[in-house]
């Protein structure tokens, strides 16, 4: 069976929901949103802690509450959705093959697509940590699902490798459920999570954070019995003689998220090696015409609020594309990271599509205190933004008035961390 829609949104997490709503709000009625899970909301449904919505709604919501606002709106707008539906193929000419129990195999031809598949967690295998392969090793998100959705505890004596946000949140969650969180071990000299999570999830519960440490060996025949932790040098290599054995039955990994772009690759979409996500324009359009992307599939965000903002932009752009209002030209301004900056999204700008501001998200490559971020257009300095602290764990959101760019005929934009003595 082949059916047609103007816009198909793949993924119904925070990104997909906001994008689909925005498509419809901007006057495109033929929109379908699909998700592989059993309910709308994506990973928000297992994030029962609060802290969502501070930027967007000026309120502190839990993940499910945050999702509920969008789900309600989606339903009010009568946007069509399909759950437990897996997209198995995506082609360059925007034909989507999906399966579910009800429709069987479904081929959908879309005029525009919004990719909102999110990301997955890095695993023990990807880190290649030596040792045995017992039970009791979970990625933080999997443990979160077991505890918050399935209602089961995963262990009693817990070590967490990596100080990503899900790991920090789970340190608190497991402590509240009666487990003993013995240590959070972080390879880098700084945490990769939000400062507020370090304070609220570790410090408030007196959970020790070991920076510049890693796990060098996993021990346990059937269930995890313990881990070996070593200090690392400035090249991140374990220092011999610093090994400490920690007796534990559970290891949580919070060692990074990877945008899920296997489908995107099938549609020949160009991927940025720094973000592992599609290269996108100011309108969140990928290298394939009419295919947009937003949320963690583009780059890993720290706040769901930012995901929503980005997704609204993608949804609005998809609607413009359908109405043939989106401009395409070849000589977009190329945006590239300068010194100290790991990546910037979007990757290029067509000024004709800008409304009053250009919104940029960036991450720095290490921690900085009292530094300026310098925005340059070709060789002229466009803006100098003072930052008390810049850390890789937090996304910087930069807004630039469109007229500042539009008035100059530039080809390149860079953002860098100001070097010493300048």
């Amino acid at each position, binding site marked *: 069976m082949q059916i047609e829609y103007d816009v198909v949104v793949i993924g119904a997490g925070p990104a997909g929901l906001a994008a689909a709503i925005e498509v419809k709000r901007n006057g495109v009625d033929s929109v379908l949103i699909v998700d592989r899970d059993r309910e709308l909301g994506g990973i928000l449904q297992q994030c029962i802690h609060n802290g969502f919505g501070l930027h967007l709604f000026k309120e502190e919501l839990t993940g499910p509450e945050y999702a509920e606002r969008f789900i309600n709106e989606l339903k009010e707008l009568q946007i069509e959705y399909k759950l437990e539906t897996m997209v198995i193929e995506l082609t360059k000419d925007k034909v989507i093959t999906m399966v579910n129990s009800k429709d069987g195999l479904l081929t959908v031809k879309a005029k525009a697509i919004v990719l909102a598949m999110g990301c997955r967690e890095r695993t023990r295998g*990807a880190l290649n940590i030596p040792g045995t392969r017992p039970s009791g090793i979970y990625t933080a998100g999997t443990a979160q699902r077991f505890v918050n959705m399935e209602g089961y505890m995963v262990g009693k004596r817990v070590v967490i490798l990596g100080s990503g946000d899900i790991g920090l949140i789970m340190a608190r969650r497991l402590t509240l459920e009666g487990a003993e969180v013995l240590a959070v071990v972080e390879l880098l000299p700084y945490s990769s999570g939000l400062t507020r999570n370090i304070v609220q999830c570790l410090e408030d519960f007196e959970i020790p954070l070991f920076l510049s440490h890693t796990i060098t060996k996993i021990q346990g025949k059937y269930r995890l019995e313990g881990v070996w932790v070593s200090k690392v040098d400035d090249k991140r290599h374990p220092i011999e003689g610093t090994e400490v054995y920690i007796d534990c039955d559970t290891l949580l990994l919070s060692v990074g998220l990877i945008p899920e772009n296997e489908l995107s690759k099938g549609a020949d979409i160009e991927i940025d090696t720094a973000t592992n996500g599609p290269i996108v324009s100011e309108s969140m359009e990928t290298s394939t015409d009419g295919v947009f992307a937003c949320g963690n599939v583009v780059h890993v965000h720290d706040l769901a609020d930012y995901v929503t903002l980005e997704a609204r932009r993608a949804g609005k752009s998809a609607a413009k594309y359908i109405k043939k209002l989106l401009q395409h030209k070849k000589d977009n301004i190329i945006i590239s990271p300068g010194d100290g900056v790991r990546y910037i999204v979007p990757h290029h700008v067509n000024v004709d599509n800008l409304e009053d501001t250009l919104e940029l998200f960036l991450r720095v490559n290490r921690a900085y205190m009292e530094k300026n971020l310098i925005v340059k257009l070709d060789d002229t300095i466009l803006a100098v933004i003072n930052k008390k602290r810049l850390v890789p764990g937090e996304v910087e959101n930069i807004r630039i008035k469109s007229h500042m760019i539009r008035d100059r005929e530039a080809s390149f934009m860079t953002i860098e961390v100001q070097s010493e003595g300048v």
Partner: protein
Amino acid sequence: MYDIAVIGAGIIGCSIARALSKYQLKIVLIEKESDVANGTTKANSAIIHAGYDAKPGTLKAKLNLLGNSAFDELCKILDVPFKRIGSMVIALQEDEFATLSKLYEQGVRNGVPGIKILQQKELRNIEPNISDHALGALYAPTCGIVGPWELAIALAENAADNGVEILLNTRVENIKKLENEYILYTNNRIISAKRVVNCAGLHADEINDMVATPSFQIMPRRGEYNIMDKSVGKLVNTVVFQCPSKLGKGVLIAPTVHGNLLIGPNSEDILEKNNFETTKDGLKHIFDTAARSVKKVSASTIITAFTGLRARCERDDFIIEEATDAVGFINVAGIESPGLTAAPAIADYVLDIIKGMNVDMVAKTDFVEKRRPVIRFNELTNDEKEKIIEKDSSYGKIICRCENITEGEIVDAIHRNVGARTLDSVKRRVRPGSGRCQGGFCSPRVMEILARELEIDMSKVVKDHPKSYILTAQTKDTSMFDLHAVNYLTKECVANANRI
């Protein structure tokens, strides 16, 4: 009383049990682990060797050749993934051509079909990503790759379909020899059998010593491996070996039947038979060595690591014989490489030994040769996918996102003979958890399906061994089950706080 008890359900025990199931005999297959194929069979190179490695005249040489030629038919009737992709032994230095010539001559004497020495250009045509230092190779077109545990599981299932009784989680702790029978004492029950076949792999010496004079010793030899993502599964087209050393065939790099890339093993003699650790040095060694064979091997594509122990014995050949002082007790021991390749031939060889023991071997008329085919959803065409979902809607529910494995496939794996009972046993049969997310997304769903189908609580689902529990207890607040209740509670708390 059983006619024959087979101890050990690895690839050898399963092959023998299935071969015996063609006859009107009462057979029991005894395994100490929670699943078949759970020892060396699940952790090896998965290669069906061409047969040039073994010394001419040895059992290894003879059974390697016979076994290799049996694979096409065997894997077809049992519906097991097998591909005959050929192998290369590459020469990275001029003087290694001498080794290639020696292997070539050995291969010719062993009767290996089609082998030849390739020069650099021919090698590069077949393997465009081969190292610039590779000067040539010994090419053996009959080398293949297989799913080793899938083969053992299929053999066990088919054996069970044909009446073999399979006892899992059953460890043989002692054996007594009576006049016309053996009594096997296990942790579960006492078993009596007229004859015993010892295929206990790493522990074959211990089993032998329970009833016969010690005549061999099994020494574990560790090999470590990495599996890489499917995105690099086509880095090589054949199985690429370097020149062999004293310790074995060296580090290979090969595609797997499922489209991943496999590198390894190293080779290290160790003392403990239960040491399945990977090591920092071992993993570094296999990676560095593989990177010398082939360009573009990248650490960022590694998805997992594992260790296998080879059951080596000092005789340097397979031991397949009746124990001298225990009539009717057959040892099948020291089955290191090319044991997987030789397995079908070893089973026939053992069958011949048993036939020579005056056993009344009457062929069954109702022997079912084929295994009920396995549906592999992601290998179906779109039309086939549509049809199967129409027939059974559980094939429309994808559980494993990385490999597109459906609920239907998992349920089928649970309900077949020798069905899956643990998370790992589902993984070995239908692969959820073998992909790049390593079960991050699907393991809660697979556990839920296991619990539902086996009618047990989810917390009783284990990873592999009965002691490898995954969940400890229910959370303190069971209202967490219902997120709407949580939302409600939160709102109420906020409201109360406002009132105060």
